[in-house]
């Protein structure tokens, strides 16, 4: 059919008038139509399912729902009641929210730095690279959902490492390094204690960080692969060291990925089930009459995180370098 149209398009303009004059559709228009056809499933779903769901969720956060068996549900509008209850009546929500955001501020630089570093390492040529890559991507596939839930309250690993101490809390015992060790290391250097504790916590949370940086590592690796080897070659001919090459070539070229990854990490770490705020909201959801309040809470949380994403994206995009495409 498209073939026919194409003929019509080119022939009818120059030659004799065709007996049946059909309106020629330009290639661009036809391609645009095809584009709509391709995104049609998503458009239908977005308009018919997703927007009503979002709308309902906003409505629920402002109302109280009673389900009457056999007839359906009744939604009463109660105004800001749910929000008031979440902010002022519930004793833990604000506290959890603040600590959750603090956690976020801690996690994101750690995950970005780690995944960038690992991606650079895994991009180098060496023996066993494929095996290491395969191992590092295991958590992306396996440590999600149910496994995360099981691991969240897992005393096995600690017990295995420690040997004794069964049944007791071994959280302090299983620390790899303590802040004091690092403080000794940094003594004399002008480094604040906050940075020291930050590094110490980062090392102790390494398992968590490794687990959560799989997708980011993939994205960085893909970005590194897309840098032309010719640039590196000309660099090494000019006598640049590896360190210089990283900061002058790799880092600017990968900076768009850093932006993408920061946004992805923020979104990912606040939507995961293991996030403290999410766990808290899930807990509220299962309480009786907690469904509307949990809606209100999650909308507030969502707005805050959107704000954070916007700020981070705005700051990061000022430093992003885009290679001009000629």
């Amino acid at each position: 059919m498209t073939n026919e149209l194409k003929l019509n398009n080119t022939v009818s303009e120059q030659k004799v008038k065709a007996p049946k004059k059909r309106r020629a559709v330009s290639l661009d228009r036809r391609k645009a139509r095809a584009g709509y056809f391709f995104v049609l499933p998503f458009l239908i779903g977005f308009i018919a399912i997703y927007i009503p769901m979002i709308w309902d969720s906003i409505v629920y956060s402002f109302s109280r729902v009673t389900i009457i068996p056999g007839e359906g549900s009744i939604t009463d509008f109660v105004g800001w009641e749910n929000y008031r209850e979440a902010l002022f009546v519930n004793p833990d929500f604000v506290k959890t929210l603040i600590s959750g955001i603090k956690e976020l501020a801690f996690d994101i630089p750690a995950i970005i730095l780690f995944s960038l570093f690992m991606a650079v390492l895994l991009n180098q040529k060496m023996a066993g690279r494929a095996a290491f890559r395969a191992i590092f991507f295991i958590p992306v596939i396996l440590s999600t959902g149910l496994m995360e839930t099981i691991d969240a309250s897992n005393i096995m690993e600690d017990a295995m490492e420690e040997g004794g101490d069964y049944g007791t809390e071994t959280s302090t015992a299983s620390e790899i390094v303590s802040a004091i060790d690092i403080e000794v290391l940094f003594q004399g250097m002008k480094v604040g204690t906050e940075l020291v504790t930050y590094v110490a916590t980062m090392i102790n949370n390494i398992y968590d960080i490794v687990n959560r940086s799989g997708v980011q590592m993939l994205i960085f690796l893909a970005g590194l692969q897309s840098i032309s080897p010719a640039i590196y070659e000309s660099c090494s001919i000019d006598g640049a060291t590896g360190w210089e090459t990283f900061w002058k070539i790799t880092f600017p070229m990968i900076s768009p990925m850093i932006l993408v990854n920061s946004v992805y990490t923020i979104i990912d770490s606040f939507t995961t089930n293991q996030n403290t705020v999410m766990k808290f909201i899930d807990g509220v959801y299962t309480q009786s009459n907690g469904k509307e309040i949990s809606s209100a809470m999650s909308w507030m949380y969502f707005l805050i995180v959107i704000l954070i994403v916007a700020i981070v994206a705005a700051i990061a995009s000022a430093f992003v370098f885009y290679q001009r495409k000629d």
Partner: protein
Amino acid sequence: MNAQQTGAPKITKESKNKIRVEFERTPLKERLKAKFINMAFVGGVIWYIFRLILLIGIAYIVLFPFYTKIAGSFMGRDDFVDVTVMLIPKDFSLDIYKFILLENQYFTAFGNTLLLSASAAIIQTFICCLIAYGLAKFKFKGANLVFMAVILTMVVPHQTIQYSMFMNFRYFDIFGIIKFLSGNATVGEIGFLNDILANINIFGAEPSSKFLQAVVEDGAFNLNNTYWPLVILSLTGLGFKNGLYVFMLRQFFMGVPNELEESAYIDGSGTGRTFLQIILPLSVPMMITVFLFAFSWQWTDDFYTTLFFTTNKTVLMPQVVEIPQSLETSYPGQNLYYAAIRNTCGLLIILPLIIMYLFCQNFLVQGIERSGLTAD
């Protein structure tokens, strides 16, 4: 080079057609010295060792939890109170496996989850390819808006809309159409639509497990406790992390040269055919990557399954994670024993994923390498 410094190479004529050239070579010792004893080489070796240690260390961090799970799963009851037992089981026993397989409905859950995950993953992969291709290769009004909408579905956490999602599929009715068609139907006495829908049994499952049979209740379809919610979400590209898949695939398609499609168009192939016969075969590694993600994230999912499957009629993976009745005991090592049992449940759940990963990990890395994923 050396020869030039010390003089020209000696050339002797051996026979009519043969000459012999003798270079004065630097002694082996000198050459080795020049090659190995310098900053670049020593630095390289140090870096190599450092890197290897680092990689092995992190590989250990990744693999150790799995090892503890495996080791724990083979331990007998007494090992959990024995202080001398650490990483290697002493009282070797297969009890934990035996009772989980016998009592936790593992095989039923396996079958159901396989059906659910495979269908969801196949649908999601194909639909996301469609959407991503449309967004990557066609310029149409509102394309950017659609892409923003895709990103929005990724950004809004599913907890935010979990209640409305539940209610939406509990009283499933698109703009009141179904209510209009079925009249003021009540439970038991229902319009013709239900007859149609109730008989749709796509996968030919046995009647007792009504995966796809919806029930009309309260004037709307109650799709909960069926596979419909997840199928519908997958069909419309709204499933778990579908925004990410669309993003990844879009970047991949943007890297596919336009000339391929143009030559196909000139040869008279339409857009649909070009997509199916030219583009899709090209993107198999990327599709396998997306399929792997979709399948394994659906397989271990405990958000949608617990949200939509409110009764225990359809046994899915989350229900496997519990203590088998025969193993319920109370003794000093109880906490640890129960932890080991739960971990074994986890191991059994991810066992198929491990096998699949072993076969597909090559594609995972390849797919990413070829994607040329860029962020503009």
